[in-house]
């Protein structure tokens, strides 16, 4: 049982209890216990095949667990999906090439019958938030990879979800763009107040973005350890730097990265 399950609010953003997921003979997830508080930023990290993407998909109700329960915002995952309580961003931006950038951001609202004027306004607001207001009328094909991912994030935020699910959204980007996008994401998450469950391969990325880093190991996929992240502003009492750039150069950051690395190595044995 995870030690951090202590400060559970009455309605956590995400709550996984004894979750197993089996694909045929393979046990992709085993005995997963995890809780996310409102506004918390949690990363899932581990080697290929450790089940982190599967875990995210289970929370999104894109897969159903073979055992255990999944609650999102106090509701079962399925209901949360039907009520559109979360937004999701995939590794490929998944933008619809025949729609303009603004129309892509509007998609969740369009699907749910929101009126045109309201959709337009919300999309404009979101594009402003991700810094792409000038590209509202462009087609996805005209945008760079990083920009497309920003549109995908804006789309995920369209229904004003309390939870953001992200599956290695920056995986296909180069290092510089990646770091810029991390700063952007932190700002967006703070401004929207959403909780974030973030899957990544990159240790520094996990540490710099998160309140907590959940380390997973494969065969079967399970959580081995949870390490404190270095999300800027998380420890207000310690006068932590508020700038992502500065965070990456603190001793505490390096210590956390080392801790995660150790945890991953341990899990490997």
């Amino acid at each position, binding site marked *: 049982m995870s030690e951090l399950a202590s400060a559970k609010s009455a309605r956590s953003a995400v709550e996984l209890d004894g979750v197993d997921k089996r694909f045929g003979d393979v046990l992709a997830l085993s005995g997963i216990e995890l809780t996310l508080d409102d506004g918390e930023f949690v990363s899932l990290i581990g080697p290929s095949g450790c089940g982190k993407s599967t875990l995210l998909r289970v929370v*999104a*109700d*894109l897969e159903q667990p073979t055992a255990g329960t999944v609650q999102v915002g106090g509701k079962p995952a399925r209901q949360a*999906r*039907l*009520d*559109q309580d*979360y937004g*999701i961003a*995939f*590794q*490929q931006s*998944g933008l*619809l*090439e*025949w*729609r303009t950038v603004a129309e892509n951001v509007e*998609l*969740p609202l*369009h*699907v*749910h019958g929101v009126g045109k004027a309201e959709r337009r306004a919300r999309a404009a607001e979101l594009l402003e938030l991700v810094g792409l207001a000038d590209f509202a009328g462009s*087609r996805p*094909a005209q945008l760079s990879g990083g920009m497309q991912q920003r549109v995908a994030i804006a789309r995920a935020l369209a229904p004003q979800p309390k939870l953001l699910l992200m599956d290695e959204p920056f995986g296909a980007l180069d290092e510089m763009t990646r770091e810029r996008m991390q700063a952007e994401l932190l700002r967006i998450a703070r401004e929207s107040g959403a909780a974030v469950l973030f899957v990544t391969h990159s240790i520094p990325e996990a540490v710099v973005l998160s309140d907590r880093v959940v380390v997973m190991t494969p065969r079967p996929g399970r959580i081995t350890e949870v390490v404190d992240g270095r999300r800027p502003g998380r420890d207000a009492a310690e006068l932590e730097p508020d700038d992502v750039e500065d965070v990456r150069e603190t001793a505490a950051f390096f210590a956390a990265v080392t801790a995660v690395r150790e945890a991953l190595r341990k899990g490997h044995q």
Partner: protein
Amino acid sequence: MVAPLALGLLVLVVWHLVVVAFAVPAFLLPTPLAIAQQFVAQFPVILSTAAVTGGNALVGLIAGFLIGLVLAVLAASSRLIAELTTPVVLAASAIPIVALAPVFTIMFGSTTEIARQLVVTVVVIVPVFVSAARGLRAVAPVHGDLMTSLAATPWQRARFVRLPGAVPYVMTGLRLAAPAAVIASVVAEYFGGLQNGLGSRITSAAANTAYARAWAFVVASIVLGLLFHLGGTLVERLVTRGRPA
């Protein structure tokens, strides 16, 4: 661009010289010049007959396109319908559909163009159905997941992802079908019926040993085919502009 033009010119010149030098009889091959002369001389007739052949091709193209599209949508929405239509379309792609021309002539009469238009329609249905069916099936996994995460109904999936996603495929089908429509239209004329199209002119000119004239009509039908091909390509480009290649 230069190489094909140069080759074409070379071929024309050599062709002309060979025919003249070896006194090749006209029934075998007239000179390009003779053909060009006939083309110019017969131009009004060429236009009127091309209009008929082209008109049949166009009617069949539009009808076949609409029917092929509807069939593909039906096949995409029901596994049973897909299983029933696929063998029929597969068979249709193998059999000589133009051989149905006499049958249609009997059924619909030999005094209108309906029989030929019907042949073209059936010929067009095949590539349009195949392309459209493929397009409706081709949903990227990430788009599928996206729609699931948005709790979309099957109709919403179709409306927001499958149908717009299928458009490039459908347009490719149209592009492939357009010249096929002309070919079918010309060939259907070889099976009798009204004698007012390009195909019939070719046969009658050949029968009257007016070979250069026959070749002129052949050239006209080639041009007609190219025009439809161009038209189909243009429509495809126009409809899919803004999308990545």
